[in-house]
C-alpha cells in the first residue's frame, strides 16, 4: 500500500514562490491564505553565511496529531497514499487541528472548515504530480511512494544528506529536505 511523501532539494530551490502561486491557482486557495510557503533560514555572519531555503507545507505525518484531536473524524488518513485529508462536510470548525499542528500547516477556509495541502490528490489519481512539484522551475521537488524502496523519493533519501522538520515533535513527517 502506497505511502506518499515528498523530497525537496533545498540546494536547488531559489525561493521563487512558484510552488505557492501554482498551488493557489490549481486549488483555488482563497485570497490571503496559502497551503505552502517559503522559509529562509540564515546562519552565520557576513561573509561566512549559510542559508537554507525550504518550501514547506503540511507534512502528511505518519503520526498526525491533527487526526487524533478531531472530534468528528473530518480530519483523517486516506487509504490512498495514507495522506492526511479533511472532509469539509464533517468539519465543525473547532480549530483543535490548527492548534495541534506544530508546523502550523492548516488554516480555516472562509467557508468555515479546516483546510490544508492535500498533496493534490485530484491530480495524483490522474497520474499527475502535485501542482507545486509539477511547476517548480528548478525541478527541486519530488513526490512519490516512500514505501517503495525503488521510488525516486526513497532513493534520494537514502543517497543524500537531509532532514525533516521537527523530528523531535514525534509527528513522523513525510517531507524530507535535502541539503
Amino acid at each position, binding site marked *: 500500500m502506497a505511502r506518499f511523501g515528498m523530497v525537496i532539494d533545498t540546494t536547488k530551490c531559489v525561493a521563487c514562490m*512558484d510552488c505557492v502561486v501554482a498551488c493557489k491557482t490549481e486549488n483555488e486557495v482563497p485570497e490571503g491564505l496559502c497551503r505552502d510557503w517559503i522559509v529562509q533560514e540564515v546562519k552565520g555572519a557576513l561573509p561566512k*553565511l549559510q*542559508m537554507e531555503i525550504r518550501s514547506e507545507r503540511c507534512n502528511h505525518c505518519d503520526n498526525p496529531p491533527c487526526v487524533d484531536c478531531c472530534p468528528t473524524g473530518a480530519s483523517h488518513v486516506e487509504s490512498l497514499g495514507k495522506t492526511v485529508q479533511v472532509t469539509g*462536510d464533517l468539519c465543525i470548525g473547532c480549530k483543535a487541528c490548527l492548534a495541534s499542528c506544530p508546523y502550523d500547516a492548516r488554516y480555516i477556509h472562509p467557508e468555515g472548515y479546516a483546510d490544508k495541502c492535500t498533496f493534490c490528490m485530484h491530480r495524483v489519481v490522474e497520474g499527475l504530480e502535485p501542482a507545486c512539484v509539477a511547476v517548480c522551475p528548478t525541478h527541486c521537488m519530488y513526490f512519490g511512494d516512500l514505501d517503495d524502496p525503488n521510488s525516486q523519493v526513497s532513493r534520494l533519501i537514502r543517497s543524500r544528506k537531509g532532514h525533516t522538520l521537527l523530528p523531535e515533535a514525534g509527528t513522523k513527517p513525510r517531507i524530507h529536505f535535502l541539503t
Partner: protein
Amino acid sequence: MPVLSRRRFLKISSGAAGLTAAGGFAGPNWSELLAAPLPGDEIRTVPTFCDICFWKCGAIAYTKNGKLWKVEGNPEDPLSRGRLCPRGTGGVGAHFDPQRLTAPLLRREKRGQEEWAEVTWDEALGFIAEKMQAIKNTHGPEAMALFSHGIGGTFFKQAFKAYGSPNIAAPSYAQCRGPRDVGFNLTFGEGVSTPERTDIRNAQCLTLIGSHLGENMHNTQVQEFAEAIEKGASIIVVDPRFSIAASKAKYYLPIKPGTDVALLLAWMNVLVSEKLYDQPYVEEHGFGFEAFQAEITPYTPEWAYPKTGITPQMIRDTAREMARYKPASLVHPGRHVTWYGDDAQRSRAVALLNALLGSWGRRGGFWSPVSMDVPDYPHPPYPDSERGKVDNPGHRYPFADGALTTGIRKATLTGEPYPIKGWFVYATNLLQALPNREETIRAIQNLDLMVVVDVIPSEIAGWADVVLPESIYLERHDDLNVEWFRDPFIALRQPVVESPADQKPNWWMARELARKLGLGAYLPWNDIKEYLDHRLEAAGHSLAYLEQHGIIRGEKQPIFYDEGLEPEFYTPSGKIEFFSLQLQEAGFDPVPKFNPPAEPPAGHFRLLYGRAPMHSFSRTQTNPLLSEMMDENEVWLNSDVARRLGLESGQYVRLKNQDGVVSNPIRVKATQRIRGDCVYMVHGFGHTSRGLGKAYLRGASDAQLITRYETDPLMGGSGMNVNFVSLELEA
C-alpha cells in the same frame, strides 16, 4: 470563489476507488455516501506565450467552464520546457486585476492630475491622429517618438516607421542591457542576445558577478542554474549582498560596490601570469594579446585587494577555480548592467575574461543563437528620414548600437538637435524606468501630445493626454515570436478569454491609428489572423498547427564550434579583440581600466536595487496573485549597522538621498546578508498612481531616489547605482 476544494476532494474519493483497486480500497467514505456526484467541469486548453516579463515562455492556458483557471508551461517550448516561473503561473491574476484600465481616457485637467474623461476608441484614436498629423506638419514626423517595450509594440513600430519617425527606443537598452552588448560586441563582434546565449547547464564553473539568478527569474536561466547545481558545478558569486545565488556558491565574494572592474582585471592578471588561460584558443582567435598582457600586468591581486575588499588569496583561488574547468567555465555577462557609468567597459572586461577561459563558442560557455526564417508581411517601403535619429546627435556616444531613451528625453527637454513634440509610450513605465523622474516630467511638459498604452493606470499613464487600455496577453493575438535561441522555434500568442471591458489588442490600435493617419497601406491586413497566416505560409508553416500546439520547432543547427559552427568574430580584426584599436582611436581605453567609485557621504549608504522572482519591474504589483506573494519591498540593511542606528527589522524608515529626495516609508530588513556600506531594495514598488489600489504607496521606489546617473561615454547608458541614501525612522 466556488467551493471546489471540497468538491474536488469528493471526486478524488470516487476516482480513488478505481486507482487503488490493485492496492485495496478500505471501505466506504462518509463524504462519498453523503455527497451527490457533481457534473464534470468543462476544461479547455489554449497554447500561447507569456507576457508578464519579456522572456516569452510558451504556456498552456486552462479555462474551466469558460472562466480562466490557470496557466502552465508548454512542454514543447524550449524556453520554459513545460514549467513557468511564478509570474507566469500567476498570469491569470493579470486578467482579474481589479485595477485594470477599462476604457480609453482623455485628460481633463493638467497633465499629471490623473483626472480623466472616458471616451470611445474612435474619439481617442481620432484625437491622437489629429495631433500626430499636426506635429508632422509643423515639426516633421521625427518629432514623434515611440517608447516601446515588449513584442506587443511590433505593430506600433510599423505604424511609426510608416509615419516617418526613426525615433523608437526601449529602456532596455540604455537603462538595462545595452552596455553589456556593446562590451561584448567590442570584444567578440556580437552581443550577448536575449535570451542570453549562456550555456549555464553545461558550465562546470559558473561565475556570477552582480547577477542575482534566482531572484532574477528569467525562466530558462534559472532552470539551467539549477541543472548546473545538480551536476555539481562550482559556483562563484561576487555581490555586495548575499543573494540567493550566493547561498549556493562555493566561493562568495562580498565585493565593495563599484569595484568590480578591479576584481575582473586581477582575475585576468592571475590567469595570464600563471598561464592558466586557454592558450591554444587565444592564440588561434585572439588579436592584440601581447598589448593586452602588458596593460594588465600591474593589476595584481595585491593591487585589487584594498580596492575591492577581496583578499589576494581569494582572488587567486577563484581565478584558479575558473581556469580549472575551462572552457566550460562561464563568467555570466549579467543582464541589467547599468550601474556606474563605465558599464560597457566593465562588460568588456567580463567578455575578456571569458575569452581567456575560451568559453565563447564552447560548451559550458556561450552558444550561437539560431532562428527560423519567417518573412515579414509585405508593406510599402518606409519613408526615409532626412534628419535621422535624435537620440545620439553627432554620435556623441560612438559605440551606441541601440536607441537611447534618455537621448530622446534630452532632445525633448532642450529642443536640440531638433524638438520632439510627441511621445507615444507602449507598455513601459518610464517614470520607474528612467533615472531622474523630474527630468522626465519636465520633458513631458514640452510635448504637444502624450499617449500611453497600458493595462493598469501606471505612473506614466498619469501624465498622458490619452490613455489607451490594452487587452492582456491572455486576451489577444500578438506578432509571432520568431526566437533567437539554442533551438529555433516559432511561437504563437492567441486569445484564451475575452477582455472583460473595452480593452483592445495592440494590433487593432496600431492599425486603426494608421488608417486614421492615412497610412492604412502599411498595415493592410484586415484581421490579425490574416497577417499571421500570411507570414507562416510564406515560411511553409500552418497557422492551424500553431494554434493547436503553440510552438513550431525548427531543425537543430550547430551552435558550438565542436558542432561545426564556424568561429567568426565580427570585429575590425576579425578576431577576438584583447586590445581594441577602435576604442583607442575613439579616445577610450583599449583595455578596461579601473575607476574608483565615489565614497558615500557620512551617514549615507549606496543605494542598490534588484529583482524579486514574483514581480516584473513595476507592472505586477496590482496582480492579486503576485501581490499576495510580495506586497511591499523592504530595505536591506546590515544588522550590525542597524543596531548602531537603533533600527530593527519590521520598523519603517524613509530613505533620503543626497539631493534631499525623500522616499515613501519602507520596512527595514536588518540582516547579515549585506555589506555595511550599502542598502538594497527590490525595484518596482512605492507606486504613486492613485488608481493602483493596494499598491498605492506600498513600499518605496528606488527609481524616485535615483536622481543622479552617470552616462556611459561609449554608448550612452545610464549608470544608476550612484545614489546614496540615509535612513530616518518613520514615527
